[in-house]
């Protein structure tokens, strides 16, 4: 009797990283700070290079399930370099990306993803938000949420919200270019 339609609202994950507070930026842009309130997302995936302890603590208030990996400027000793997280039918691999050479190169990232035997690679470092499909897998980068991702340049502040469904991930790309812009992309599960 029920026609085939999407399941209802899926679980949400915030993908965020390269904040570098206070060294490269004093805080998130207010428009973003305003949107990111506790108890909206089930998961937080942080690509690394958070900055000070205060910021790490703030990230932990956003959900009950926060995952951190080590960026090249993260000093804490107890953060792993990589992490694997299973969410429903999706296997995610999380790594900052400064370990991968050349930086931000899809081929090298894909090789790493394949080694991890995961479906989706969440990575940062480049400071530029990007969602790409390689073979049957996906590489997603939230960019830098403060725009201060390394010494040389600033970038457009950005982060991602992922909505997890059984057969796909709905990606919401939030960028700040004068005002908050939201783009959507659908990633069907291909195994």
């Amino acid at each position, binding site marked *: 009797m029920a026609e085939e*339609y*999407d*399941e*209802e*609202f899926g679980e*949400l994950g915030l993908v965020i990283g390269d904040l570098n507070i206070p060294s490269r930026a004093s805080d998130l842009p207010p428009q973003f700070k305003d*949107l*990111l309130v506790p*108890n*909206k*997302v089930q998961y937080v995936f942080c690509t690394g290079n958070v900055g000070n302890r205060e910021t790490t603590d703030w990230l932990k208030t956003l959900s009950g399930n926060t995952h951190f990996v080590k960026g090249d400027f993260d000093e804490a000793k107890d953060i792993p370099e990589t992490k694997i997280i299973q969410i429903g039918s999706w296997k995610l691999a999380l790594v900052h990306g400064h370990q991968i050479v050349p930086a931000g190169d899809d081929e090298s990232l894909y090789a790493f993803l394949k080694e991890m035997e995961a479906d989706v690679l969440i990575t940062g470092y480049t400071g530029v938000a990007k969602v790409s499909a390689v073979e049957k897998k996906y590489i997603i980068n939230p960019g830098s949420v403060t725009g201060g991702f390394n010494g040389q340049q600033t970038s457009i502040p950005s982060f991602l*919200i992922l*909505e997890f469904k059984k057969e796909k991930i709905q990606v*919401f790309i*939030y960028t700040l270019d004068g005002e908050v812009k*939201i783009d*959507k992309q659908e990633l069907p599960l291909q195994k």
Partner: protein
Amino acid sequence: MQNQDFDIESLSQNLVGISNENQQLIKDVQNILRNEIVDEDGLIKLCQQGFTNQTSRLRGIVWRLLLGYFPLNRKYWTQVIIKNKDNYNNIKIENIKKAPPQNKNDHPLSRNTDSDWNNHFQDQQLWSKIQKDVIRTRVKELGKEDYREMLNRILFLCCKLNKMDYVQGMNEFAALILYMCMSDPNEKLQNESDAFYCFMILMTNLKNNFQLQKEKVRAFQDLLKKVDWKLHDHLVNQKMDFSILYVKWFMILFAQDFHIDDSLRIWDCLFCQKNNREEFLYCLAISFLIQLREELIVGDFGQILLILQNLEKQDINLSEVIQRAHLLQKEQKKC
């Protein structure tokens, strides 16, 4: 099948073990229900002492009539049940199983009032808030997963549709009504939809119920003084705060802590009061106090509180309390 008359003949089936007096009551009620239009006053007169285990089979029909869920004309009852089952299904679909966001510009962090995502979060919060109370409401009678979900749904939908906040106490009310429906010996009355609509009607009737109104506490105290000044003075001397009683008795309407059969019986009486519910409530409360007079009048502050905060644990003859309440009400009318 649709227009089949609601069956009331089964009410007098299987009267084994029921006292003669109660058998007569059942038959008298049945006679009233046999008429095309129910004589509401006549029905109230018969039922106003409330139902016991022997006569509880009458409760389902009587509550539905007194709440106005059933019209007085019996030929519409079956229709009402069927139509409301459909309506309730639609309400559930529209408000619980929501389709995914349709609006192109909608996104998970949106705080717009017309954002599907935003409404989804508000709904989730409301559902969770209610769930925290539901899991400890009438655990003995409604502990099953199915019943818990029904109770949660009924409370959620009522609050959502009426755009009202969930307040503690609503869970006890909904629980009584749901239990009344689902434990009815007549299968045709075991409907979550009936429980939902009856609860909605009740909430509409109890507009400011959950606000503590100081004048009412005063009125209660004054009435006690009039009826039993010795007891009143003793309680006042022991620094008894009457507003404590007000919450449990006048706001929660004896729906909590009492054995469920006792709560249901008290509600039988309250529903029979139609427009005099408040006045009867005062008389009932005072009747409880008088019933416990012997222990209360020699008790100090602590002992008094212990007794009154645990009313349901006292050895009380509820029939006596109810009878006295009716007498008090009659006496007050004469004044």
